[in-house]
């Protein structure tokens, strides 16, 4: 199991997920630093992410879009607030308007990532996400459920097509 610990703070609206990997921190770091690797895990399956801008410096932006099963594109953004390779990074992420500008009506998440070398090799990664209001979390969860539903429908289509 990758995830070794999950802490939820209902007062501070914070989620802290700890995971462990056999690879060294430098290799784990590449999954954040390399946009081609990042786009392989950020979005749900059948919602592939395409990263178009990836300025991996403090203050730098990521622009990306996810493509749904019906071809609809959902653009999103990140802004890196700190980067300390290969140990720590922090960023805010949200959704964009079709123009590419951040959509202020959509939920934003602040995420802090820390990597630690484990004794005997491997890496422990702690991902801490914080939301500002319950409404932000509601919206994000609602969107995730929409993605999940569309995915389920897409799979049903595939099964029907195989007939």
């Amino acid at each position, binding site marked *: 199991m*990758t*995830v070794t610990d*999950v802490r*939820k*703070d*209902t*007062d501070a*609206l914070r*989620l802290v*997920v700890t*995971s462990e*990997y056999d*690879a*060294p921190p*430098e*290799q*784990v*770091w*590449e*999954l954040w630093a*390399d946009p081609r*690797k990042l786009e*392989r*895990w*950020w979005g*749900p*399956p059948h919602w592939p992410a395409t990263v178009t801008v990836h300025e991996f410096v403090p203050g730098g932006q990521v622009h990306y879009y996810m493509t749904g099963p019906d071809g609809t594109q959902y653009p999103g953004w990140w802004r890196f607030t700190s980067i300390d390779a290969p140990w720590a990074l922090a960023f805010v992420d949200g959704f964009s308007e079709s123009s590419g500008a951040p959509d202020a009506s959509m939920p934003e998440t602040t995420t802090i990532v820390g990597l630690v070398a484990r004794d005997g090799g491997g890496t422990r990664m702690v*991902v801490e*996400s914080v939301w*500002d*209001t*319950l*409404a932000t*979390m*509601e919206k*994000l*969860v*609602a969107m*995730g*459920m*929409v993605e999940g539903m569309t995915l389920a429908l897409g799979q049903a289509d595939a099964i029907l097509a195989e007939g």
Partner: protein
Amino acid sequence: MVVVSLSPERVDLVFHALADATRRDIVEAAMGGELSVSALGRRYPISLTAVQKHVAVLERAGLVRRRRLGREQLVCTDMDAVRDASRLLDRLEVLWRDRLDRFASVLADEPAGDPT
């Protein structure tokens, strides 16, 4: 679409209520059962009136319930309201677990040894 359980007005009230450390502590203290306002008053270096104001904010947000018993006011946390935040964090936990499963798969695809 998803049924959103809290109205935007209610969400604002809840967020405002939980933005204060004393109020968060009251919510936590009163999870175990009813506490009198005077007992709460002994927990904090603030006046009884200030405690009553905090309780009123929490009550408006639906986070605690209050009833009178003689000369005392008893406060208890409304666990359904607290579970709202907990339920949302459960869903976001699933999102991150799925994401980290994919993270591990991408990592496993890498040739062992030097990072590229």
